[in-house]
């Protein structure tokens, strides 16, 4: 008896501490320390034409309050949420039908999707830029088929950035939704149909609400992922389509303004965390109601 009690006590007190030590160390070394450095840098003073020196000034944050960065932030949130919504609109039905395929076919699709993940953002960006170009793009096929008069350039444009972001987010959305949808009891939609619901009604009244948590998780993940994308808007968009992440890159690499880039990054992170918390809280309230 006492052995059992001892083991239980050991498990209760000692194990979590020991096990958490390792990831905890990683978190401190690779996240908290760099974050602290970045936070400090965001208050530093920039030396014009040079580097920066330690200081404590709020100038970098004050600059954020300009209408220009307000617009960039607004645009970043807009295109990221729109891209995340489009990703789910394609990824959810796709994954739903994927889980209804036979096992070997499912595995083949999942391997294909994982293979797509191995493509870098650079390759994806430049591939889409040629696919949407006038000289080598998809519009040539439409001209050849006879649907268009002459080939057109579809990039750089807002739509091109959106397409790129949706393309890059899609494999992630499938991988997040796949477990939830394959766990779904197939008799649930059948029960709904027997009770008089059309396949359409069944989808929105039964399938979607049951996997709602996975959908919210998927949306947040793709949204944050798109918000952090700094290459696609540059390759596929015009300067007015540059997101906050592009501005951070621009400030850090081309304007050599590390303190301001750090302030932008901190700001973007706070906004992102705020939105994620808001989504979870709203989601929980609706689930409770």
């Amino acid at each position: 008896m006492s052995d059992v009690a001892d083991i239980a006590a050991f498990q209760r007190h000692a194990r979590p501490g020991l096990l958490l030590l390792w990831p905890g160390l990683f978190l401190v070394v690779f996240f908290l320390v760099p974050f602290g450095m970045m936070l400090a840098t965001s208050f530093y003073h920039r030396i014009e034409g040079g580097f920066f020196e330690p200081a404590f000034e709020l100038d970098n944050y004050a600059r954020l309050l300009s209408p220009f960065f307000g617009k960039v932030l607004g645009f970043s949130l807009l295109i990221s949420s729109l891209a995340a919504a489009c990703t789910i609109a394609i990824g959810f039905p796709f994954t739903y039908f994927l889980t209804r395929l036979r096992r070997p076919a499912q595995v083949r699709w999942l391997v294909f999707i994982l293979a797509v993940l191995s493509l870098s953002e650079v390759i994806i960006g430049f591939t889409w830029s040629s696919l949407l170009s006038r000289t080598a793009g998809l519009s040539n096929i439409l001209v050849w088929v006879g649907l268009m008069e002459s080939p057109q350039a579809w990039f750089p444009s807002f739509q091109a950035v959106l397409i790129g972001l949706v393309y890059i987010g899609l494999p992630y959305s499938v991988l997040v939704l796949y477990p939830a949808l394959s766990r779904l009891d197939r008799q649930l939609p059948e029960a709904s149909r027997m009770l008089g619901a059309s396949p359409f009604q069944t989808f929105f009244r039964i399938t979607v609400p049951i996997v709602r948590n996975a959908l919210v998780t998927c949306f947040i993940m793709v949204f944050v992922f798109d918000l952090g994308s700094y290459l696609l808007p540059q390759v596929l968009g015009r300067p007015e389509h540059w997101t906050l992440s592009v501005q951070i890159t621009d400030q850090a690499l081309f304007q050599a303004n590390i303190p301001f880039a750090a302030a932008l990054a901190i700001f973007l992170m706070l906004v992102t965390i705020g939105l994620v918390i808001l989504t979870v809280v709203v989601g929980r309230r609706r689930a409770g109601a």
Partner: protein
Amino acid sequence: MTGLHIDGVSKSYGEIHAVKNVTIDVPQGQFICLLGPSGCGKTTLLRMIAGLEEASAGRIVLDGEDLTRVPAHRRNFGMVFQSLALFPHLSVGENIAYSLTLRGVGRDERRRRAEELLELVRLPGVAARPISQLSGGQRQRVAIARALAFHPRLFLLDEPLSALDAKLREAMQVELRQLQQRLGISTIVVTHDQREAMTMADVVVIMKDGEVQQAAPPIEIYRRPANSFVADFIGLSNILAAEAAGFDAVTLGGRRFRVDALPAGTVSGSKLLVSVRPEDVHLLPEGEERENSLPAEVTFVRDLGASVEFTLRAGETELLATVSPREHPGFVVGDRVLAQLPAAACVVLAS
């Protein structure tokens, strides 16, 4: 033309024939059990009746209306699934009223009807609870209430009681039968449990390899099995090899046994099987010669309290006899006895 007519229905998946040319008539208000070992096609047949599976051939007609190509959600049948398939994101009341919500019934009416149905399945006052707070038996009742909410034309149940423990299952069988009789609704239940089928059904349909072996009231299935598969599948049965001898007798173990009837078209000398239920075998002390009897030796005695089982050996054949403790003849292992098989209890089957 009232009632359900399943007319030559088949289902094949490529080369595999799950259901072969099944024809069953279900008169209005009857309780039918589809019974058979797993893989016999009973669930596939039920799913075709429900409209969840499309028939490869044949017609499904209800009250004169051909429903073969009508989609499941327009058939207006109630169905209880094996997994029960209660919607986890809805409360008990919302689950039961789901079909009413779809049909645009108002909130107050939905609430009233859900309460009424919960009364019907003897589970009042749980409408507001989430499904996760119910026990297995309670979920069972909610699934039944949900299927009955919109007055279905047909009530279908796929192994509905398999998730319950033995005692609760027996109680639910009786309750389900009483509920069905009260509502007078035509009901089809799929089960692999013959006790369940015998308890509930007006007609038991025995299936094997996608084909109907026999469709008859339970007692007839038990008393007059149509073939050796049915005799063996339903209850315990002694199946003995015999040969036809004349028009009302067989030769069994070198002795002549009188029987009520031989299968049509039997000629003298053809191989037959005789099925006798263990409780129909009478045991007598050896000595006096009787009609329809076989000398045997007791090889094992099993006193189960409610009944006593004797295992007998007569030459090459083994025989089981069951008697009630009141009639315990007091034989022990090694005793020579006379096993009498009354003519009325001998069902002769084609070999």
